[in-house]
């Protein structure tokens, strides 16, 4: 079962391995720049945020942002490229595997890339800065990173499945992904929001990812609201991505 998915995942990992160094350099440059600019550059201007030094406050979010962005990008662009340009999806489909193998293989590839790139940023931040966290909190943090990458990988797969023009994938990133990420309190506490908006912000899946990840890594707390929201979102996104891909293929 899912042997085809494993084969497709293996193919994607083989391709990633070939350009791993350049990929990691490219993917770590942006969050590290943000960390240095905001965490180090503004250190003298921004006091602690809710009792946490600012550089420490933004680090978990930057790692999570790298992971989920990489998961989205890999899934969306890979699915689009394999479907529209290289037409390898059509080649996969004349083999004795199922459409579930294809879509699950692609989702897991996106998730894996997100996880690898998130860890790379974490390692770099760890090496270059005084950012430290209790190792006991790491498993809880991984839960949020893993499910967050899964959600974004599924969303990327949906986009790569239904969007035919590549510029529209870029627009989705600019108009939906980036605002959702930045609204979820990577650089500021959620308490900054007006009380009327805050309940809406709290139920966003991205808030569950970023705020949940921060609370788990820095405080060792698995906030139930965020844990449940993220788990349900990941399950729904997975079912939806598989269903959309299946329908598109049927067409």
């Amino acid at each position: 079962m899912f042997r085809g998915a494993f084969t497709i995942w293996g193919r994607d990992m083989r391709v990633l391995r070939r350009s791993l160094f350049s990929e990691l350099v490219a993917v770590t440059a942006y969050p590290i720049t943000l960390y240095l600019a905001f965490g180090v550059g503004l250190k003298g201007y921004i006091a602690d945020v809710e009792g946490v030094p600012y550089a420490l406050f933004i680090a978990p979010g930057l790692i999570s942002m790298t992971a989920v962005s990489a998961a989205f990008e890999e899934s969306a662009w890979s699915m689009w490229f394999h479907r529209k340009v290289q037409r390898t999806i059509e080649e996969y489909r004349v083999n004795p595997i199922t459409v579930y193998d294809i879509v699950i293989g692609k989702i897991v590839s996106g998730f894996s890339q997100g996880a690898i790139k998130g860890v790379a940023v974490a390692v770099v931040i760890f090496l270059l800065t005084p950012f430290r966290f209790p190792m006991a909190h790491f498993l809880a943090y991984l839960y949020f990173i893993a499910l967050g990458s899964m959600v974004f990988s599924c969303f990327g797969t949906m986009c790569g499945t239904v969007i035919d023009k590549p510029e529209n994938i870029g627009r989705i990133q600019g108009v939906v992904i980036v605002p959702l990420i930045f609204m979820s309190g990577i650089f500021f506490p959620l308490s900054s929001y007006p009380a009327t908006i805050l309940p809406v912000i709290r139920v966003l899946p991205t808030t569950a990812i970023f705020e949940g990840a921060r609370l788990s890594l820095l405080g060792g707390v698995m906030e139930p609201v965020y844990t449940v929201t993220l788990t349900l979102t990941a399950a729904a996104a997975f079912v939806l991505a598989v269903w959309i891909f299946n329908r598109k293929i049927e067409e």
Partner: protein
Amino acid sequence: MNNAISIQNITKVYDGIRAVDDLSLEVRSGTIFGLLGPNGAGKTTLIKILTTLMRPTSGNAFVEGKSVLTDGASVRGMIGVVPQVNNLDRYLTARENLALHARMHRMRAREYGPRIDELLELTGLTGRQHDFPDTFSGGMQRRLVVARALIHAPRVLFLDEPTTGLDPQSRRAVWAYIQSLRSTMTIFLTTHYMDEADTLCDRIVIMDHGRPLVDGTAAQLKEAFAHSHVYELEFRANADRYEEVLRTFPFIRSLERRGNSFRLELRDEESLKPLMDGIGSKDLKGICLEEPSLEDVFIHLTGKKIRE
């Protein structure tokens, strides 16, 4: 001899257009079957249905006895597909492309390793096995796609316009390879090239508007149109005047001019006498009866109008 493919009343409608219209046919095991037709005739749609890439609107088809509707995975396990457009993975080497396909067919490394060596040797790509397909010529890419379709030793091979866009040398290399597969498997081929069908196919069906028009061997189809009365006339001079005269004759079905020569199709044998009476023999250099080619049969059946 058993049928490798059995198509039963297949219809495919999209956007109100019947791409395939109640088509039924059978293909015997171990033969090379050629499906010919102009663009939009329904050839690729039919191949997509037979390879389970597309579901028919109605009807069913069986490949080696397995239904494309209800047993798609079994069908896909028995077929090899060479699509119209190369869909090689440009981020994998030639060898990795073949290995990926083998793994999709649940082959183990110890099985597919020697098989890949054999196919690379047969297709003349051994020296380039660690290169990426982007660096290959069109002919080499095509040979790699054919090799990929054969990794798992399919019982039925579908080739959708396998030589489109290739130079004559590459076309002949692909032909030679297809001929070497004759009798080891059933081959279902679509093509625009009449010479390709003439050279390779044991049986040919010409289809248009989703329906089969004729069915037989290349020789049978040409023979059936041998009474089509196609003549070639050549004049020494005054070709323009003779063209005007020829165009007035109601018994000439079609007329093509090449310099001082005219290729024309008469309505029947009795039209020859009024033709000769009409043009006289003063400027006539020669007249000969043409043997119809497969292309004549094709054009006669599907018309001259260019399809989009």
